[in-house]
């Protein structure tokens, strides 16, 4: 019993022990985790840059040392001051950028010649070294970035910095060097560009005037405001009602401007004029502004206004610009000659109001001419620009590099739309945007997809051969087991017939832009479409010539929203609306074959080939999505295959077929993430169709049967 008891005790002890042990082990594991993970944290600071950049080296430049510095060359242009021979070294569409190692520059008395690098400059360097532009090899670099912080001209010893720059290894009077500067000039003149001897270097500066800015050479950048940029401002919905029409919030404005603004404020209480708070002493609190004695939080107050005034101060560039944009307020820039940030690529007419200083008194009148729709667009644009190009130093630095990149490789440059358009799913870029009517003399190429129905195929060829504008017949032979019959057995039609043997039996083969197709216009035909008359086809071609960016054809279908299944449904009944024209008999521009083959989104092509179905629906989706336009159905013709059939001739109209087609529509809609098809209620007929008029005078007579 004793023994038993003892044992019992032991077992409860051991449970307790085991519990303790596991606890300890778990804690140990956690400690270990911390131990293992933490080094990366510890070393983040130390290894922000690769060792090659972050040196602790000290370079001594003697005061007596002769270093030739060159004042900023105002005549520089891209072609005269930027050497391009190095630029395509690694990649023919991307410049490579080298960043000088971070060093301290001292004179013989250990006095520092440059300022220690600021957090902002550090971030710029970081962004560049992390980017695709970066190269660690100066011999293949197109652009050089000195690790000398010149962001703020104040406290900078201009002469020393100039000497330091000139002493850099690859300086060569500054050619191919890029310098960042955000605060330029100093009292009393306030030059609009940093007054260091920069020679032929490119300057990315914040306060350029159109007189100091070397267009297509310098880059105008926004002034980054670290005092507010980190702030998370409350998010408002788009139609958030704004209390004020216009706010002026800048401090230190010129008395003459202030006078005008005070006058404006008296006339219109929708204009809020803010200034320093009366009790405050210098240095003022940046985040507080006052109207009389009422205190407003800055920049939050800007969110309450539709427009925000950005007036020139002693400097042209003002942080108020990005402050306003951060708050989603449309900047009204009043600074004659100011070169707006990134104006080389950004279209400021879409995001800001530029008013001449002389018109300051009319400013309210001017902004009241903007329509509510325009204001809404501008607000979106302001937000887009801010988020994409202004919000961080990384954005600013990389945008600067991209702009220079576009100058070096203009043929690979980014487009206006890339820089300015807010990506939207329903915006289309019609590839055939010019209102052309292709010359009739070109004719069209009939592209017939076939497998082995020779008899029917020959019948189709003979029929289409009668159409005057036919230029050529291209037969896409999809049968892999049986070769096409020799040319001698094909019908003679007086026009060339080309047979293309495909490598695999795929439906997509019918939309390959074969070199054999020499006309812009393709007539896609199935090998059993034997009922079309030559007048119908010729008329169809004429209609296509008037609408060459659309799918113009005979068999039409409709897509419908099925409320019960919450899905799209394919409809082949004769309806009052259509949204698709099937490519069993349809004209379209060859470019769409090129697109179908080369840039069909997602796995649509694969889907089509796997299911051996829906290539025609896919083409309708592609074209509607590219052009935003509906197809056009030509003539009343509704039956194509069998002359004897009396009723609705949907031979394939069995249920599974319809289900499969509906499935295709739903699948494609999900791939495009939108339903691009558009419905219309009309069809194209010849001008004199069914008119009581002598048939001999009608151009297209044999039109009208179903």
């Amino acid at each position, binding site marked *: 019993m004793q023994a038993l008891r003892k044992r019992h005790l032991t077992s409860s002890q051991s449970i307790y022990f085991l519990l303790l042990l596991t606890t300890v082990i778990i804690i*140990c594991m956690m400690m270990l985790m911390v131990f293992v993970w933490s080094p990366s944290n510890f070393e983040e*600071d130390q290894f922000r840059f690769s060792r090659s950049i972050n040196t602790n080296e000290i370079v001594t430049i003697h005061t007596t040392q002769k270093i030739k510095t060159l004042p900023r060359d105002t005549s520089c242009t891209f072609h005269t001051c930027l050497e391009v021979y190095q630029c395509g070294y690694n990649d023919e569409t991307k410049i490579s950028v080298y960043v000088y190692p971070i060093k301290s520059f001292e004179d013989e008395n250990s006095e520092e010649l440059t300022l220690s690098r600021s957090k902002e400059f550090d971030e710029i360097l970081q962004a560049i070294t992390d980017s695709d532009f970066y190269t660690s090899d100066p011999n293949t670099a197109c652009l050089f970035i000195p690790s000398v912080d010149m962001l703020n001209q104040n406290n900078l010893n201009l002469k020393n910095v100039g000497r330091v720059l000139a002493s850099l290894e690859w300086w060569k009077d500054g050619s191919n060097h890029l310098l960042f500067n955000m605060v330029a000039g100093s009292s009393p003149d306030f030059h609009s560009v940093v007054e260091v001897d920069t020679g032929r270097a490119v300057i990315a500066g914040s306060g350029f005037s159109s007189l100091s800015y070397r267009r297509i050479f310098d880059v105008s950048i926004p002034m980054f405001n670290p005092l507010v940029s980190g702030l998370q401002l409350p998010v408002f919905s788009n139609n958030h009602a704004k209390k004020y029409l216009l706010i002026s919030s800048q401090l230190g404005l010129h008395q003459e*401007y202030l006078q005008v603004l005070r006058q404006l404020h008296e006339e219109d209480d929708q204009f809020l004029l803010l200034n320093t708070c009366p009790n405050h002493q210098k*240095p003022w609190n940046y985040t507080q502004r006052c109207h009389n004695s009422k205190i407003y939080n800055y920049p939050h107050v800007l969110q309450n206004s539709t427009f925000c005034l950005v007036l020139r101060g*002693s400097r042209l560039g003002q942080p108020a610009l990005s402050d306003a944009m951060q708050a989603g307020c449309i900047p009204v820039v009043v600074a004659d000659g100011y070169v707006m940030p990134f104006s080389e690529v950004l279209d400021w007419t879409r995001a800001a*109001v530029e008013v001449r200083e002389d018109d300051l008194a009319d400013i309210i009148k001017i902004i009241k001419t903007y329509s509510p729709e325009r204001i809404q667009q501008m607000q979106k644009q302001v937000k887009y620009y801010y988020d994409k190009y202004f919000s961080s130093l990384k954005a600013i630095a990389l945008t600067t590099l991209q702009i220079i990149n576009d100058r070096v490789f*203009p043929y690979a440059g980014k487009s206006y739309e890339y820089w300015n358009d807010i990506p939207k799913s329903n915006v289309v870029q019609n590839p055939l945007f010019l209102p052309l009517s292709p010359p009739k003399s070109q004719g069209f190429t009939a592209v017939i997809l076939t497998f082995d129905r020779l008899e029917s195929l020959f019948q189709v060829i003979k029929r289409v051969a009668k159409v005057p504008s036919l230029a050529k017949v291209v037969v896409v032979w999809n049968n892999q087991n049986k070769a096409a019959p020799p040319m001698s057995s094909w019908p003679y039609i007086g026009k060339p017939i080309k047979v293309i043997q495909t490598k695999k039996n795929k439906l997509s083969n019918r939309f390959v832009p074969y070199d054999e197709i020499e006309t812009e216009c393709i007539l896609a035909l199935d090998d059993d479409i034997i009922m079309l008359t030559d007048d119908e086809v010729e008329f169809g071609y004429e209609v296509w010539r008037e609408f060459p960016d659309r799918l113009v054809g005979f068999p039409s279908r409709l897509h419908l929203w099925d409320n019960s299944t919450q899905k799209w449904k394919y409809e082949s009944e004769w309806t009052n609306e259509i949204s698709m024209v099937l490519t069993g008999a349809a004209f379209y521009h060859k470019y769409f074959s090129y697109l179908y083959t080369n840039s069909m989104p997602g796995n649509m092509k694969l889907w089509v080939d796997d299911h051996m179905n829906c290539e025609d629906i896919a083409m309708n989706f592609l074209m509607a999505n590219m052009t935003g336009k*509906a197809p056009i159905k030509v003539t009343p013709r509704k039956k194509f295959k069998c002359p004897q059939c009396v009723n609705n001739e949907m031979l394939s109209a069995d249920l599974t077929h319809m289900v499969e087609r509906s499935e295709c529509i739903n699948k494609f809609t999900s791939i495009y993430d939108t339903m691009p098809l558009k419905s219309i209620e009309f069809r194209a007929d*010849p001008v004199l*169709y069914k008119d009581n008029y002598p048939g001999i005078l009608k151009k297209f007579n044999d039109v009208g049967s179903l």
Partner: protein
Amino acid sequence: MQAIQRYILVTVCGIFVILGYVCLNRLSHVGQRRNGPKILRSYVDWGDFSFNEDLHLSTKFRRSVPSQTYRQRCRMSSCFDFSLCENGFKVYVYPSWKNVVSDTFSQILTAIEQSRYYTNDPKQACLFIPNVDTLDQDKLSHDFVHDVQSKLSALPYWNNGRNHIIFNIFSGTWPDYTENVGFDFGEAILAKASLSVSKFRYGFDISFPLVAKDHVLKGGDKGYLYSSSNNIPSPREYLLAFKGKRYLTGKGSETRNSLYHVHNGKDIVLLTTCRHGKSWEKNKDARCDEDNREYDKYDYKKLLYNSTFCLVPRGRRLGSFRFLEVLQAACIPVLLSNRWELPFSEVIDWSKAVVSADERLLLQVPSIVRSISQSEILFYRQQTQFIWETYLSSVEKIVLTTLEIIKSRIKRHKSRANKLWNLEPGALSILPEFSDVMEKFPFFYHQLGTKPGDKFTAVIYATTPIALASAPLFRTLRNVAKSQNVVKIIVLWHCDIPPPPSHKWPGDLGVPVLVKTRNIKTISARFFPFKEIETDAIWSLEEDSLLTTDEVDFAFSVWQEFPERIVGYPARNHYWDEIKQRWSYTSKWSNEYSMVLTGAAVYHRYYNFLYTHQLPPEVIDTVDQSNNCHDILFNFLVSHVTKLAPIKVTQRKVYQESALTNVNLNASKPLSWLQQHHFTQREQCMNTFTQHFGTMPLIRSKTRMDPLLFKDPVSNMRKKYRQIETV
């Protein structure tokens, strides 16, 4: 057992303690580092950021420009007097220039005088155009005009060139061809060809295209793409072509002298000749003879039309005539002219139409050209045609573009978005006064993914007094009011007898009816952009219209797919009369049409604005005085802007009751005198308008749009527009 357990426990605890110690140590270390000297300073502090008080003496003084440096320093804010433009943008041309200026300059001045901005009153003027021919300032040239400086200073409103434009095409001469025009033009805006990036005062000067002597005043050559293939892959025989002079000495030689390195005689054909000037043989080099032989094998024009890309290297000056010729030929220009400021670069986005190569990297040109994808070629090629057709093909377009650019600088907030300059139909057809958003214009619905509004305003033009309640106007009102899509009916009362009092009008229409009697003095009032018209669509009707409600609705439904066109019932055609050598008008039934009359048509309300504000007064006067042709002019205008045909819907051809009776009674009789007169007038109008537009803008169509089941042998119950079947 217990002992072992205890040992293990102790050991584990030991490890635990050691680990804990190490970790704590580390963490505290981190804390130290975070707070330590590693924190970087910010590049600005409160002080030097925004609180530098603006203590400049005077803001006005700051903006003025020291007189010695104004040449380089002129900008709109410093060298332009905006106060002169407060009464609108009017341009004055100093008179009596005829027969004293060169042909090209005479065309420029004519184009300005014919534009809607012209004024003959210098007091009204915002811009002044000197009558001194400054186009050619090459001293060796025939057209060189001496001593322009003193002639300019003698102009009565010269004022040191303020608000004046100086046009120049050639400056400098052999051998250095400097860019300086060689005379002092004060504070005038320079509109000059072949400007370089560094000399160009951006936002002030105008980079002008190099206009050839034979450039026409109006109309101009159609772009070659309109009559050739826009296929993929590019159907043109050569990839890159050039045929031109090679300068043995002087400026511009380097680039052209090395072109033969790139020539391969197959798809890249770059041909140069040394033959030019009198004494070329003296300077002739080793390659000359071979080059000349190769040069003679090819025809210049044929090369342009048969090449996908065309090289445009600098000549003596930065720009060359070649540039415009290449654009017209739909050959994509490959520029080899460093620092050249391209024509109208302030507004035209040339990166969409040309390939910029670098003279320093000539040998890369073939690989650059080959790297451009077929899609891009298709795009570039169309864009060359768009730019050529819209801004460059005639002197008139060039001049209007110049004026529009300056106008847009004056009221910046009322200027069109940059984007609109580079999209069909181009800035000259977009009046920014109409709206400041793209969505309101008829041209951009498809690309913006938006639709025109699904309602329309009916505008009914009435000229006959009303006596009976069964008057045709009332029937028309009822038919239109039954439409689901009408929001308002406006009756334009163009009649000496006032309209009946409101209680006599049909009362139960369910749609507001507005009768306009004031300011309906002329027939053009039909197209006045009344502010009461708020919908995108206008259904334009006449009082005795025969249209059924279904017809009204169906045409509107078609219009929604073609919002930039006129969609309607009465179709007409035009043809070239070989005997009379002029355009003729016909209302006969035929297989084609090129006009749809506005007596029964739907169109976008923007065209009303365009008709009223863009057409010059003389043209409108032609219409108003004859009380005729307004509908022809309207078709000219819309087709001129869109380069598209109108759209005729369904069979109906006669849309007026009056016309119907005429047809019935006079079917066999010859036209009455009145009708004959009416018809002759219309023919005259056609020719007047063609002259105004410089070309025949009408486009023919062979297509008419019918409802989908129109006249199909199916039950009428299945058809949506049943009334149309019975018309």
